[in-house]
């Protein structure tokens, strides 16, 4: 055990910090979940990629710098520490890419990864359907085989930023004879053109962060099937576990939030609220715990072990920590907590209210925490399903 960073790791951190300090936009961009903000964020993604920071852990050939997992965590810590813009490319880089690396053909990797990482082609996930949320296997969208490819029909929903993205990926039933997890295939498909309609849906915080996708006989070539036909569930589980896993929420994010909370506490602690001091301390402690839990997990992964159902523990912990931390912040702000971004008297430009609303999505998406607790109980503790 050595919890010091190696010379290489420290050097890597310095490199991240130096570059970020020089390049992170001085004034914050508009929300990446709005149309104009999305465009601003793509500019930033181009800059990141061109400097080789878009996907540090990727092979050089795809624009990465072959960073270790530890270095990736270091990059994330520095990224959030620098208050750098949120990553509008994350549904591609963090969710689709791992699947492509494991199941994609060389042709697919060569064609898709670089444009994805540079933000030249942007990706949204298309998992849920109106009647298939927690129960993903209940999905009804179908793909019919035709000359040279498939025709996709059905409706997907809660597709993050799909209103602005170029492409999406999801599961479709290719074998009408099969039910539930069997007979599904994993497709990549365009969000523009004939046969596809995208309707933006405003989120709690007012941003157009969601979209519904309506597909009608949309043509997709065979080249855009990932993994084997009818084997989509296996392929998808790989993605959703990385969606739940640390690739979605690296500790750096929460450490940055905790330090901002401490700063807020110094500005707003009121003596009528002794409890808040302990809540602030707990927020800091939890960010630390999440960081070290993650380093331990990553050390295991570096040694070739997989996360497995640990990713469910990870997801429940960070998502509920994030809600608690923002609740504490709003409690510190008190009566002014209701003030939105635009309000002249808003504290920290409404940052905490926005963050609180965003945090409320954590226990819901990527598999509700209820589903995660079932997984933990059944797969880790071995409790009976029925």
């Amino acid at each position, binding site marked *: 055990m050595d919890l010091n960073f190696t010379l290489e790791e420290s050097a890597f951190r310095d490199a991240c910090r130096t570059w970020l300090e020089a390049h992170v936009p001085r004034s914050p961009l508009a929300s990446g979940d709005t149309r104009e903000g999305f465009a601003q964020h793509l500019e930033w993604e181009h800059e990141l990629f061109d400097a080789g920071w878009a996907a540090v852990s990727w092979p050089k050939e795809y624009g990465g710098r072959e960073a270790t997992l530890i270095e990736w965590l270091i990059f994330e810590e520095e990224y959030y520490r620098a208050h750098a813009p949120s990553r509008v490319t994350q549904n591609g880089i963090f969710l689709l890419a791992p699947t492509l690396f494991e199941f994609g053909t060389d042709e697919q990797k060569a064609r898709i990864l670089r444009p994805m990482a540079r933000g030249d082609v942007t990706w949204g996930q298309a998992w849920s359907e109106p009647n298939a949320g927690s129960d993903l296997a209940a999905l009804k969208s179908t793909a019919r085989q035709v000359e040279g490819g498939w025709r996709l029909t059905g409706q997907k929903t*809660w597709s993050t930023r799909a209103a602005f993205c170029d492409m999406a990926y999801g599961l479709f039933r290719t074998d009408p004879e099969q039910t539930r997890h069997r007979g599904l295939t994993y497709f990549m498909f365009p969000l523009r053109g004939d046969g596809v309609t995208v309707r933006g849906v405003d989120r709690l915080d007012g941003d157009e962060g969601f979209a519904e996708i309506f597909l009608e006989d949309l043509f997709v070539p065979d080249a855009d099937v990932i993994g084997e036909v009818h084997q989509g569930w296996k392929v998808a589980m790989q993605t959703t576990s990385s969606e739940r896993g640390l690739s979605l929420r690296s500790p750096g994010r929460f450490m940055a939030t905790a330090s901002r909370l401490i700063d807020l506490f110094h500005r707003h602690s009121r*003596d009528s609220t002794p409890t808040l001091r302990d809540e602030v301390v707990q927020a800091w402690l939890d960010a630390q715990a999440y960081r070290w839990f993650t380093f331990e997990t990553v050390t295991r992964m570096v040694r070739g072990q997989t996360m497995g159902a640990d990713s469910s523990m990870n997801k429940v912990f960070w998502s509920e920590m994030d809600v608690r931390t923002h609740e504490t912040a709003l*409690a510190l702000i*008190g009566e002014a907590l209701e003030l939105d971004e635009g309000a*002249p008297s808003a504290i920290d430009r409404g940052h905490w209210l926005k963050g609180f609303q965003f945090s409320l999505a954590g226990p819901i998406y990527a598999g*509700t925490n209820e589903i995660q*607790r079932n997984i933990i109980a059944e797969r880790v503790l071995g409790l009976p399903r029925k």
Partner: protein
Amino acid sequence: MEFAFTDDQKMLRDTVRDVLERECPPEVVRAVWEGRGARSEEVWSTLADTGLIGMTASEAAGGMSMTELEWVLPHEEIGYAAVPGPYVDTVAVGIPILDTLGTDAHKSRWLGPAVSGKARIVVAFEGQTRVPFSEGADVLIAQRGGESFCVPWSDVSTRSEPSVDRARQLVSIEFDPSDAYRMRSDKVSWSTAKDRATLATAAVLAGLSRRMLDMTVQYAKDREQFGKPIGAQQAVKHRLADALIQQEFARPMVYKAAWSMATAQTSASIDVSVAKIYASDAAKFVARQALQVHGAIGYTIECDLHMWMKRTWALAAALGDSAFHRGRVAEHILGTPET
């Protein structure tokens, strides 16, 4: 000892409930949210015609001098329907203050119209710089430097302060405290008024809570996953059972505070703090459970839930959040805090 409302008090509640069910469905709240029909005239005028605005005014002023015991249940219904208008400010606070502290000039100009629903009152307590439901406002009643003012809204300079609850139409206010606006001053009336505002807000929160739980129970019965309603899942059942428990244990504290104020108990002010703590904590807890059970659909503004949830966040922090009132209770039962 008899802890129950009279039939008259319950009948009044049912009247409000019927009126609002008819006049203030979610679409009306949504319209205000989206800046359409910002004054929701029909709701207000119907409430006035039914005597539900003027009830706190003295008989002389055309009201019924109704006490907290009469208006606490109506306020709960105002919350249940998330009525987008300055009901608390006008009914629980404004009219009584105007009635007691207003000069004849102020009264003759504003009291009648307020009672009849023609004029809506917004209130700013000492130190309070923002007021809600500005679109609906006709007159501001404010305490500044211990003095009382009655200012036509047209003379108030405002600046929009967008709230997470768009229907709150929050603005910060400034006015020139000139003699023309000055009313009689009286500390007692103002501290009672603040207790009334706090109690009324607690009642509104109790109503918001009940509505969010109703919506969520209905959704849990309708929404199917894994071949059955999600409400059949034990995790959902226990979540909603806990929500109900917190809500049902909060309401008696609100009613008790109403009785304490109506009968001028010495404990009234602390009882109001207790009511606000329970109503705020319960409503926030219910909101949290409601969103989690709704899942992604509850996370969109296409689902009505968010309008009630955001009102809850705003009101739980208004007129002293739980931490503030817990501090007051602490000093009451522990003496000055050790810590």
